[in-house]
C-alpha cells in the first residue's frame, strides 16, 4: 500500500562480500529474477570489504543496469559480522534476506522461505540439504554443528549457510560483532523470536573442498564459546564462574588439607612437595574465577535498568483518559522491543 508508494522494497537482499565472492552478476540475476517471479519488489545491498575491492567494477556495472542495487564500500577490513550489520542497517524492506557472495543454494528456495515469514516465523535459516559437498566439508560441518547444538541446546544443522530470511524487527534487535554472524539464528531464538530451519537445495558451485588454517578453526571454537556464554550466562555470570571458582578453591583446599594431615600424622616433609604448591595454585585460581564472576554480576546488576529480563511481544491496554471507553490494540505485531514494554499509559 503506502509502503510501495514510498518506494520501499518488499525484500531487501544483503550480500556481504568479505572473504571471497563468486559470479556476482549471475548471483544477482538469478536471485532477483526469482524474487520478481514471486511478485516481490526487491533491493540488493552489496557490502564490499576493503580486501575484496576487485568486486567493485562488476557491481558498478550491475548498478548501471538496475537502480535497485546499492553498494556499500567499507574503508577497511572489519570482518563479516560488521559488513552484515552495516548492510542490515540500510535494509528498508519489511523482509530482509542475507546471501553469501557466492552460490550456496538454489534461488528456488526463496519462495518457501518467504512464505514461512508470512506464517508467523520471524527468521528462516537456510540449511543446505541434501548436501552435495565433498566428504571433508561435511565432516567438519557436522563436527562444528554437533558442538554448537550441544553447547546451546538448539537444533541447527547448518548455521554457516549465508542464506537467511528474516523480518526487519529481528534485524533491529540484533547486535552482532566479532564472528557472531554465524550464530544469528541462535541469538534471535534467544531473544524470543520464532526461528525455523529450512532445507534448501545446495548449488553445484558450493562443492569445492575448503581447508581452513588452524587459526580459523581455533577462532570458530572461540566463537562457539562466546555464544555459549552469551546465551547461557550473560544474565547470571556468578552462577557459572562462582560454582567453577568454588569448585577450584575447594579442590585446592582439600589438596592442602591432605598434605597437612600427612605432615602431622606421618611427618612427611612438607617443603619438598609440589602437591602443596598445586593446592595453593588451585585456591588462588578459584578465588580469581569467583571474584571475576562477581565483578561480571556487579556490572549487570548496576546496569540492570538497561537490561530487560523479558521481551514483550505485545501490550493491549485501553487509551488513558477514556470517556469513550474503547480499546487500543497495538498492531498485531508491533515493534516488539523493550520500547513497547514501557509505553507510558
Amino acid at each position, binding site marked *: 500500500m503506502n509502503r510501495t508508494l514510498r518506494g520501499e522494497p518488499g525484500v531487501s537482499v544483503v550480500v556481504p562480500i568479505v572473504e571471497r565472492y563468486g559470479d556476482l552478476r549471475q548471483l544477482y540475476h538469478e536471485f532477483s529474477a526469482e524474487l520478481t517471479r514471486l511478485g516481490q519488489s526487491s533491493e540488493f545491498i552489496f557490502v564490499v570489504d576493503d580486501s575484496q575491492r576487485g568486486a567493485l567494477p562488476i557491481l558498478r556495472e550491475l548498478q548501471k543496469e538496475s537502480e535497485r542495487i546499492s553498494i556499500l564500500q567499507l574503508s577497511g577490513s572489519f570482518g563479516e559480522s560488521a559488513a552484515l550489520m552495516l548492510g542490515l542497517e540500510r535494509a528498508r524492506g519489511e523482509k530482509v534476506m542475507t546471501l553469501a557472495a557466492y552460490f550456496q543454494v538454489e534461488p528456488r528456495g526463496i519462495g518457501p522461505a518467504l512464505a514461512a515469514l508470512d506464517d508467523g516465523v520471524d527468521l528462516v535459516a537456510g540449511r543446505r540439504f541434501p548436501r552435495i559437498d565433498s566428504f571433508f566439508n561435511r565432516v567438519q560441518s557436522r563436527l562444528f554443528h554437533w558442538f554448537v547444538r550441544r553447547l546451546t541446546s538448539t537444533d541447527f544443522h547448518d548455521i554457516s549457510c549465508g542464506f537467511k530470511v528474516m523480518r526487519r524487527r529481528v534485524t533491529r534487535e540484533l547486535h552482532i560483532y566479532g564472528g557472531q554472524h554465524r550464530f544469528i539464528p541462535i541469538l534471535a531464538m534467544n*531473544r*524470543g*523470536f520464532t526461528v525455523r530451519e529450512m532445507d534448501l537445495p545446495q548449488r553445484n558451485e558450493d562443492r569445492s573442498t575448503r581447508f581452513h588454517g588452524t587459526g580459523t578453526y581455533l577462532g570458530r571454537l572461540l566463537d562457539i564459546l562466546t555464544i555459549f556464554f552469551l546465551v547461557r550466562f550473560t*544474565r*547470571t555470570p*556468578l*552462577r557459572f564462574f*562462582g560454582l567453577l571458582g568454588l569448585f577450584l578453591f575447594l579442590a585446592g583446599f582439600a589438596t592442602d588439607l591432605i598434605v597437612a594431615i600427612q605432615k602431622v600424622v606421618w611427618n612427611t616433609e*612438607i*617443603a*619438598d*612437595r*609440589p602437591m*602443596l*604448591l598445586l593446592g*595453593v*595454585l588451585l*585456591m*588462588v585460581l578459584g*578465588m*580469581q574465577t569467583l*571474584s*571475576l564472576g*562477581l*565483578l561480571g*554480576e*556487579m*556490572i549487570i*546488576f*548496576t*546496569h*540492570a*535498568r*538497561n537490561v530487560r*529480563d*523479558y*521481551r*514483550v*511481544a*505485545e*501490550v*493491549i*491496554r*485501553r487509551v488513558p483518559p*477514556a470517556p469513550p*471507553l*474503547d*480499546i487500543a*490494540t497495538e498492531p498485531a505485531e508491533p515493534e*516488539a522491543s523493550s520500547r513497547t*514494554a*514501557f509505553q507510558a*499509559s
Partner: protein
Amino acid sequence: MDVSIVIPLYNEEESVEALYAEVTAAAESLDREYELILVDDGSRDATRPKVRALCARDPRVKGVFFRRNYGQTAAIQAGFDHARGRVVITLDGDLQNDPRDFGLLLQHIDEGYDVVCGWRKDRKDSFSRRLPSIIANRLIGALTGTPIHDNGCTLKAYRGDIVRRARLYAEMHRFLAPMMSLSGARYKEVVVNHRARQFGQSKYGFSRIWKVFLDLLTIKMLLSFTTRPAAWFGLLSVPFLVGTMLALAISVYRHLTILPYMPYSLVFPSITVLFAFAFAHLIILGVFAELVVKVGDFKQTDTILAVVDGPGGMQS
C-alpha cells in the same frame, strides 16, 4: 488508579476465564478504581487468545504478552512495569489464591504497611511440595533476618511507589518482601485462604532449594559489594595477605635455619608469590569494581527501596 492487580499466567487456558470472573467480582466489591494486568509468560496453549478476548471485553484488563517463556519473576516484573495503581496486588494464575482476600490485604496497606504478604497457613498441597518450601523459607528468614513464613505465596500487596522502584533480579520475586524489609519497609503477614489446584499442573516448582539459596547469597553479596566495592574486595583479600605473610615467614625461617648442604626447596617462596599475586589481584579488582559501580546507574536507594514517609510518599 487505586489498585493494580498483577497476575502472571503460564499455560492457564482452563483457569483464565474463571480467574477473571473471580478477580473481577472480588475487585468490584472493593469499590475502588482498579486495573487488572494479565501477563502471559509465553504460554503455548490458548491462554493468549483468551486474554486477548478479555482485553476486548473489559477495558480494565490490560494484557502484556511475552515473546517466549521468561519465568515468573520476569512476568511479575513486567506487571510492575505496567502497573499504575497506588497499591499493587500480585496473585497466582492458577486459582489457588483466593481473590476474596484482597480486602484483607488492602486493609493492612491502608493501615500503613508497605508490604502485606499472604501466608498459606493451611496449604492445600502435597507434603513433598510443602517440605522444600518450609526449608527454603527458613533459609531466607535466617539469611535476611526476616522470618516470613511463606515467601512462595504470590498473593501479596505492595505500595505502588515501592514496587515501581523495584528491579527484580534473577529469581528475586521470592524474596522481594524480605529484601524490602531489610531496607526498612514495614511488612505484615496475613493468613490467606488457599485452595487445591483445580486445573492443570503446577508449573513453578519450589523444590529447588539450592537455587533459592544461591540466588539469595548472590543478592546479599551484590548488595554489599555494590555499595562498597573496594572495601569488600579488600576484605576478601585479607586471607591472602595473611597467607603471603605466613609463607614469607616460613621461607625466611627455612632460609636461615636450613643446613648448607641440603637442597633448597622453592615451595614456600613460590607460595609466597602466588598468595601475593592473588592479594594484588583482588585489590585491583576492588578498584575496578569501584569504577564499574560509578559508571553504572546503580543507586542504593533505588535497588533497596528506600521508603518515603510523609506527604508525597503514598501519592505517586
